[in-house]
């Protein structure tokens, strides 16, 4: 059953108790939290994901709780949230209004640190007609803005944050979790995709104001469908720039992709072989843009790679 089809009270009770299991595609995440506002946001953002009453196999267990201070003083003087990933506590406590980014960061942390079945790249991935567009990028490059804009205009969302490349066949697995927007991009996407469900804005994070976009229902429904990488495009948002795609030599693209990987070094020869096969099979570009309309047109017209390019 989808999370959004469960009674809100049941979801809250399960999350306050032993946790509720969300099938996010490649990973089942058990979420446990007593924080009511966080439960409401999870119900909205993960509305279309299959939810399980629990008891099955779980990949990650994330608990977001209020820390208990001495005599409860800290808890009430400054309301905070803290994430526990099984027995690990990778982050410092944060103000309770940052519980959603804390949850999302915790799930990302689990994938980046506890799994190695994929070569993982920090990248947005979208698909059209079976071909995947990989948008690697550092924070601020405009990756998530592009990702949200394409995901609501004809492209299927595979992921906003992780390109999960299967070493065996080079295909990319989908992990279509909520898209993280920052600062001015939030209103930009509200205007670009009025039907998109965007969660509450969270101010004063280390990246400024953050809001998450619910992934399109069709992308969630097709979360088991993999895609074949066809284009690796390194985006840069540049105010006032005309949209421009510039071919990027493949050896340079290889290194930039490896730099964006969470586990290239850890995987050794498997990482090298997987990334080199992927670069060989893709067309590689740098992309400067300022207008989403330009981006939609240019990326939509990308030529498919020739079989041996």
């Amino acid at each position, binding site marked *: 059953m989808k999370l959004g089809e469960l009674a809100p009270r049941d979801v809250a009770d399960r999350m306050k108790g032993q946790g509720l299991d969300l099938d996010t595609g490649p990973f089942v995440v058990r979420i446990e939290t007593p924080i009511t506002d966080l439960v409401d946001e999870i119900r909205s953002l993960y509305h279309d994901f299959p939810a399980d009453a629990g008891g099955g196999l779980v990949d990650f267990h994330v608990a977001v709780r209020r820390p208990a201070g001495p005599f409860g003083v800290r808890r009430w003087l400054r309301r905070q949230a803290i994430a526990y990933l099984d027995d690990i506590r990778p982050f410092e406590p944060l103000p309770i209004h940052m519980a959603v980014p804390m949850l999302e960061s915790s799930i990302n942390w689990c994938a980046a640190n506890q799994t190695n079945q994929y070569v993982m790249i920090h990248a947005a991935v979208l698909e059209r007609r079976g071909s995947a567009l990989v948008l690697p990028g550092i924070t601020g490059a405009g990756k998530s803005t592009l990702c949200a804009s394409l995901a609501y205009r004809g492209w299927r969302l595979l992921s906003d944050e992780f390109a999960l490349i299967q070493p065996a066949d080079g295909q990319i697995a989908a992990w279509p979790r909520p898209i993280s927007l920052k600062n001015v991009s939030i209103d930009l996407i509200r205007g670009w995709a009025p039907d998109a469900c965007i969660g509450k804005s969270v101010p004063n994070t280390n990246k400024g104001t953050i809001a998450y976009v619910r992934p399109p229902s069709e992308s969630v429904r097709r979360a088991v469908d993999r895609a074949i990488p066809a284009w690796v495009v390194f985006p840069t948002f540049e105010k006032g720039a005309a949209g421009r795609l510039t071919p990027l030599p493949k050896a340079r693209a290889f290194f930039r992709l490896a730099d964006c990987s969470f586990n290239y*070094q850890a995987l050794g020869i498997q990482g*090298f072989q997987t990334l080199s096969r992927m670069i*060989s099979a893709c067309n590689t570009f740098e992309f400067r843009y300022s207008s989403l309309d330009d981006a939609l047109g240019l990326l939509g017209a990308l030529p498919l790679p020739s079989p041996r390019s």
Partner: protein
Amino acid sequence: MDSASELEWELAEGSRLHWVSWDDEYVVFDEGSGNTHLLDFLTAEVLKALEQSRGAVPALIERVAARLDLDPDADLERRIREVVERFREAGLVEPTLS
């Protein structure tokens, strides 16, 4: 070039190279160190020559010049000496002990 006083160079112990090339650039993964290197055409030829067999710089110059149809002149010698030094700094090659 006086080969008698030259050190001989070989791949560092444990190195095992995996190559991929696109256009005139090469990416080489060294399974021994876990490091990945970006090489241009000439640099790649020097490393390939050392991967095939160890040798002193004068011999390397002869082999690379013949392979690339270049004159084994002073400019090529300077460039190859720089390349070998960069390989040494990167831990790709080491002088032979014998």
